């Protein structure tokens, strides 16, 4: 199946990437090329094959529940676009 302009708009909305109307057309064509290329996977019989999520089988390690990090809030906020009083500023979300 191939994507139409509405599909592209929906995917872009999910990905939080703004696309202009002009970009949407070019993007549709490029995504359809790539999806067409990926399509060959569908021809492979994978009945009974366990999906491989990772390159090596590792189990989640647990560590003791103790503080290991020091407070570096000022360092980390120094690279933020906008902060105030130790808080990250974003546009108002609750009126």
């Amino acid at each position, binding site marked *: 199946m191939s994507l139409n302009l509405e599909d592209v708009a929906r995917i872009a909305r999910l990905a939080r990437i703004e696309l202009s109307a002009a970009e949407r057309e070019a993007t549709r064509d490029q995504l359809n*090329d*790539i999806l067409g*290329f*990926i399509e060959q996977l569908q021809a492979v019989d994978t009945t009974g094959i366990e999906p*491989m999520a990772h390159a*090596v089988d590792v189990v989640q390690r647990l560590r003791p529940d103790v503080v290991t990090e020091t407070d570096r809030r000022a360092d980390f906020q120094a690279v933020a*676009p906008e902060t105030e009083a130790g808080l990250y500023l974003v*546009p108002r979300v609750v009126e």
Partner: protein
Amino acid sequence: MSDLINSSLRELSAALATKKVSAVELATLFLDRIEKFNPPLNAFITTDRERTLAQARTADERLNTGAGTQLTGIPLGHKDIFCTKGWRTSCGSQMLANFVSPYDANVVEKLAAAGMVTLGKLNMDEFAMGSSNETSYFGPVRNPWDVSCVPGGSSGGSAAAIAARLTPAATGTDTGGSIRQPAALCGLTGLKPTYGVVSRYGMIAFASSLDQGGPMAKSAEDCALLLNAMAGFDTRDSTSLERPTEDYGRDLEKPLAGLKIGLPKEFFGVGMDADVRAAVDAALAEYRKLGATTGEVQLPNSGLSVPAYYVIAPAEASSNLSRFDGVRYGYRAPEYNDLTEMYSRSRAQGFGAEVKRRILIGTYVLSHGYYDAYYLKAQKIRRLIAADFVEAFKQCDVIMGPTSPSVAFAFGAKSADPVQMYLSDIYTISTNLAGLPGMSLPCGFGNNNMPVGLQIIGNWFGEAKMLNVAHQYQKATDWHTRMPEGVK
């Protein structure tokens, strides 16, 4: 002094230990070369002479008190994907063009602890997504062998800088071939370790189940020294493997008599250029002279590796890159009306075309109703690809083939057609999917007198074996010592 630019790391180490040269002199030599030769190449995108020389002075003090390691005082460059405290860490993106990292990646920390001196940060495809270094926000890197050609990618800055002798060594990362393919296209030796051997902490994530850092240098011997310092368990990377410490150079001098080399018939079919084929065949003949035997093996599903990769890698990238939202770090759009618009404009403006394309593909294959058909399907095929290698390694010690189907191509040759660009990594991607280690080493020159790379694929945790196999070839040949004319 000038012969030091072609010295091996072992030779540099000896020169430092015997006070033939100081760390400050060595750093100055390479900083001066960067000043002279980097502008057309665009390999280094951040340098800081004072910071570098301060590190070199510390290294000299360590050497004077006898507290140095074999790498103390040797300069290197870091791919700009590795967070380096106090240095801009851009990942080749406008998104992070002003990001000065507040911490060091594990790899950076380890190499600094060994006493290595940072010359600067190296250009790369944006977020490591590319095979030609044309997607960097800071402009393309040029191949020192021919500046009208690409250096390969994504670790193209690392490769070009070593080829031009602007640094003796560099770090790289490899998600689908990003160490091996640029190493091949620039005539270097590069190694992607088994997944989990090198910590991913502080290495900006592209596709977490595939990303692996590794060394790039002029020879296998140099790569072994670097890997010894880079590898090791790290609690801050949940997929770092807890294994006994290894000396990856322990087997370098072992003779190759009796070595069984597997040649996948799928790698030697159509698709490989004739000049690449000729150089690879000549290398295999050299290996037979060294006592190895060659035999055909089969990797029947390897043809599916590129399409499977372009489901799995974008899926993981779409998740990893969701952290770039213009809130905590990185680029924020100048104008927006609400929070959602702030996100979507910051990401639209801060990311380049290829990165956005992959995020969109990844978002789609993970979206409701398509997950099973694409993502789960690709993960099942990933298992088939890995199982092929298990079978193949029952018949051989290492696998060999070309690293790249062609020598370095001209700028623009593939950039308009994403699928053609993706196929540049046709021989390298399957090792990432399987988690295997792989190397590329120079094995001659092809069309337009451009370098050709021979790929060695090792069994899981077979780094020492691969390095042995590469080093014995490099003792018998001199391809790895060649240097481009333009930077002499």
